[in-house]
């Protein structure tokens, strides 16, 4: 069968000026980074302070940087797609190229933008919120990060070497099988996601152990901040959903590299089983990225309304209900695959049920603002912008849950509009709220409001201009994933408007990035550690927090501990007293997590091109590194009292 030039297994994809441009810019950027690091003699610093770190705060920062870069990368994909679709019958991108771009756009946005963003927030906020000095397994935490990082590198490498995956971010078999897609692109997809997925499972375990076992004394479960609760719900889903993805990916990979017949159309293979397993993970995944945003909104709305969160218990129970029920709705992603009356009815009703706890949360947020004093700072603006967007997206989601209506909307632009409304209006807005909210805690300065507001309005207006027309396009019968469309269908005007909206969001991103750069130089320093008049424990610490977080672990008596103490004028309770300070036990930095990442990368790369010697060498190195770790009995040290006293004095806390 005729297959594009990708099938020739050549390493470098040739003949495409866009690719040459990308190659050139990647090489230039790499050379630039190497030059800067060498010129400023920063290699040692980079290795000691960052690449080998096990400090949750630094790992959080690295996740954050990666997430923002990937947002840019996949956002560029989106703009290229929208450019291609602005007018009918365009040839800016050919089908091969368009297919690769929408595939990497979706894949990167979910796995390498949304996931690291929530991991960044978990790492940055959770230990500080629960009064812990680090996560339960700091070393494993570093492994998780490097698996994510090298997974992301592997997928991004495909753009330059061998060709990107082109079967959609869902990578449905049999289209993604060897028979219909013989190039290495799909292998890149399968292996990069497998590697990053292992890291995600480890993170899930890590944070559940952290939250269940390492809370400060007195912080009972029902005194935990809601963001931490949202991380509990998210990680429950991660540990129970990601293994299903791991299996789906592994089996498809076995089909592709070992000639098995799980999902082929020959020898009894059943392609739909892949789809079934993919969505066993896939639907919970939606809530994995959404629940932390719910947590963020709960923190922000209480802080900036200067009010206790409304219905704390309902908030907690609704998140837990969501995390369980969202495990029972996956078949709504394929109502139109002949599931039959009973299957479709069950999954339709189960999907609608999720709307109930979600709706309750919206009301609770609004009634937190009710009788409050709402300060329109950036985190609050994003939270307020989230509500109408989320309500609209949720409503269209309810309609998609109605199976017979879904027969008409499935695979149409109505669906595209719906899930972007949830994932941008829900997740990304939530991440932005969190970015502005915790930025001073992480970096010690506040992001500039003026730049922030410009970015906010570009994003918001751009968002509605881009996606509301897509609902209408869905009603007009336009399918997703078409690289071009005919004129005369009435789709042209709305597509053009949608493209304008996409570029407005692009400008929003640039303004946001500009605001960050501006604030690095001119931003207001946060000297108090509590710039927003916060409620939870992290705001009782200096910004940024010292690397042991708490000189003395606080004792908790109240849900909004910090706020309550401030109300009573007893802030000093949370200051360390010299006589209470003891040597602090901390984990040592280690190079092994980074090396494990490298080994996984090598193994993955070997499997992509069926170079089994490299693959075996990579796997062997992984086992050796794990064994070496098992023999390590002194992976920790103590910070002496003097040093703690010195640091705290310098921070003005003693």
């Amino acid at each position, binding site marked *: 069968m005729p297959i594009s030039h990708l099938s020739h297994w050549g390493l470098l994809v040739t003949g495409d000026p866009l690719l040459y441009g990308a190659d050139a810019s990647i090489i230039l950027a790499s050379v630039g980074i190497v030059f800067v690091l060498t010129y400023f003699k920063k290699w040692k610093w980079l290795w000691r302070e960052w690449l080998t770190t096990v400090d949750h705060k630094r790992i959080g920062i690295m996740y954050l940087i990666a997430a923002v870069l990937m947002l840019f990368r996949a956002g560029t994909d989106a703009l290229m797609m929208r450019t291609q679709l602005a007018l009918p019958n365009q040839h800016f991108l050919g089908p091969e190229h368009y297919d690769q771009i929408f595939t990497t756009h979706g894949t990167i946005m979910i796995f390498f933008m949304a996931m690291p963003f929530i991991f960044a927030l978990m790492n940055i906020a959770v230990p500080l919120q629960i009064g812990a000095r680090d996560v339960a397994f700091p070393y494993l935490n570093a492994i998780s990060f490097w698996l994510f990082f090298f997974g992301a590198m592997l997928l991004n490498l495909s753009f330059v070497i061998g060709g990107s995956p082109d079967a959609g971010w869902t990578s449905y078999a049999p289209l993604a099988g060897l028979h*219909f897609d013989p190039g290495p692109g799909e292998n890149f997809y399968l292996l990069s996601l497998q590697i990053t997925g292992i890291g995600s499972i480890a993170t899930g375990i890590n944070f559940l152990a952290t939250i269940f076992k390492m809370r400060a004394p007195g912080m009972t479960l029902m005194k935990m901040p809601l963001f931490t609760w949202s991380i509990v719900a998210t990680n429950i889903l991660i540990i129970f959903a990601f293994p299903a993805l791991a299996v789906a990916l592994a089996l498809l990979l076995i089909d592709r590299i070992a000639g098995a017949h799980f999902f082929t159309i020959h020898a009894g293979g059943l392609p739909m089983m892949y789809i079934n397993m993919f969505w066993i993970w896939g639907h919970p995944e939606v809530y994995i990225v959404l629940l932390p945003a719910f947590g963020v909104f709960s923190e922000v709305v209480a802080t900036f309304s200067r009010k206790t969160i409304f219905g704390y218990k309902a908030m907690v129970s609704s998140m837990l209900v969501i995390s369980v029920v969202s495990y029972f709705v996956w078949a709504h992603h394929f109502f*139109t695959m002949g599931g039959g009356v009973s299957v479709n009815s069950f999954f339709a009703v189960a999907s609608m049920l999720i709307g109930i706890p979600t709706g309750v949360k919206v009301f609770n947020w*609004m009634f937190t603002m009710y*009788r409050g004093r709402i300060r329109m700072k950036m985190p609050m603006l994003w939270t307020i912008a989230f509500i109408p967007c989320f309500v609209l997206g949720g409503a269209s989601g309810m309609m998609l849950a109605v199976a017979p209506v879904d027969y008409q909307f499935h695979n149409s632009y109505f669906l595209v509009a719906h899930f972007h409304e949830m994932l941008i209006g829900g997740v990304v807005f939530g991440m932005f709220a969190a970015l502005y909210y915790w930025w001073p805690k992480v970096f010690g300065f506040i992001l500039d409001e003026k730049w922030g507001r410009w970015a906010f309005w570009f994003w918001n207006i751009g968002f509605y201009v881009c996606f509301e027309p897509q609902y209408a396009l869905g009603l007009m019968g336009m399918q997703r994933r078409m690289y071009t469309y005919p004129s005369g269908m009435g789709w042209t005007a709305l597509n053009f408007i949608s493209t304008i909206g996409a570029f407005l969001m692009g400008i929003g991103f640039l303004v946001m990035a500009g605001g960050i750069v501006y604030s690095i130089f001119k931003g207001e320093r946060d000297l108090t550690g509590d710039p927003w008049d916060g409620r939870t424990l992290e705001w009782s610490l200096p910004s940024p927090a010292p690397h042991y977080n708490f000189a003395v672990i606080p004792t908790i008596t109240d849900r909004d501990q910090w706020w309550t103490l401030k109300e009573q004028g007893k802030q000093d309770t949370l200051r360390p007293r010299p006589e209470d300070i003891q040597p602090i036990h901390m984990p040592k930095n280690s190079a092994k997590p980074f090396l494990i990442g490298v080994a996984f990368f090598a193994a993955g790369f070997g499997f992509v091109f069926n170079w089994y010697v490299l693959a075996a060498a990579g796997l062997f190195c992984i086992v050796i590194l794990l064994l070496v770790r098992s023999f390590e009995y002194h992976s920790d040290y103590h910070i002496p009292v003097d040093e703690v006293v010195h640091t705290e004095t310098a921070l003005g806390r003693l």
Partner: protein
Amino acid sequence: MKAGKVRRRTLTYAGLGAAVAIFLTGCGTQFQLLNPAGPVARTELNLFDISIVLILIVIVPVIGLLLYIVYRYRDIPGNTAPYDPHFSDNRVLEFIWWGIPIIIVAILGVVTVRTTISLAQPPGSTSNASPMTIEVTSLDWKWLFQYPGHKLATVNYAEIPVGVPVQFILTSNAPMNSFWVPRLGGQEYTMPGMALRLWLQANQPGDYYGHGANFTGRGFAHTTFHVIAVPMAKYDQWVKHVKTTAPALTLTGYKNLAIPNVVGELTYSSYPANSFYNTVMNDGGRFMPSTMQVETSLHH
């Protein structure tokens, strides 16, 4: 700040207005989903309308309330609105907002299940005509329609008589696609090794746009087809015309069709016996008991 709020409100109203205008007036035929040409699409549109009304019950008050609260309780000097930093639970309020979504979901759930069941049956016929069958195979990147009643075949278009329920039996001899004719009704996947059934019916003559809805690779954007609904007499004429003038689809011809490429509309007066059945069986159908049931019911 203030200008921003005005802008956002304008935007919300404009959006809502546009939504209401589109949904209620069903303007312009390009809104294919809002202009059903048959009972299946009509049923689905009715359900769509019901769900719109139900969700508007939530959307409108929520957005209204949000605007009110944000305006009323904003933190400006001299705001006289009450400030109650510990107001954090209220049984009555919580009862209301757990209750309303539960009621809405209950209503929507019931109508959903009833419609799901009804759509699995042949649509009520307007002419008491007995249902007909068309076997559909999605190929890379084209659609093959086989008429077991007349033993004729078409590519990328299908003629159907008006007012007759048509059961499309769907399979794929390539990556799975999805068979979708928006103005006649919702889609159903074509999957290798499976034979899924989709009931559709056109109640008015017309040329209806159809397209593959599930991504199938390079040529996906070109998987367009047409379903042409004509009065019974004209349909019979068409059949007669095809049987007398069109070439036969040979086994070689079928194999050529399976080559991934894009072709125009084609017509054949006959096709290899049992080719649809064999496609399903060869692509895995023989391992699927339920598929065999659908198939044997066709082949008696």
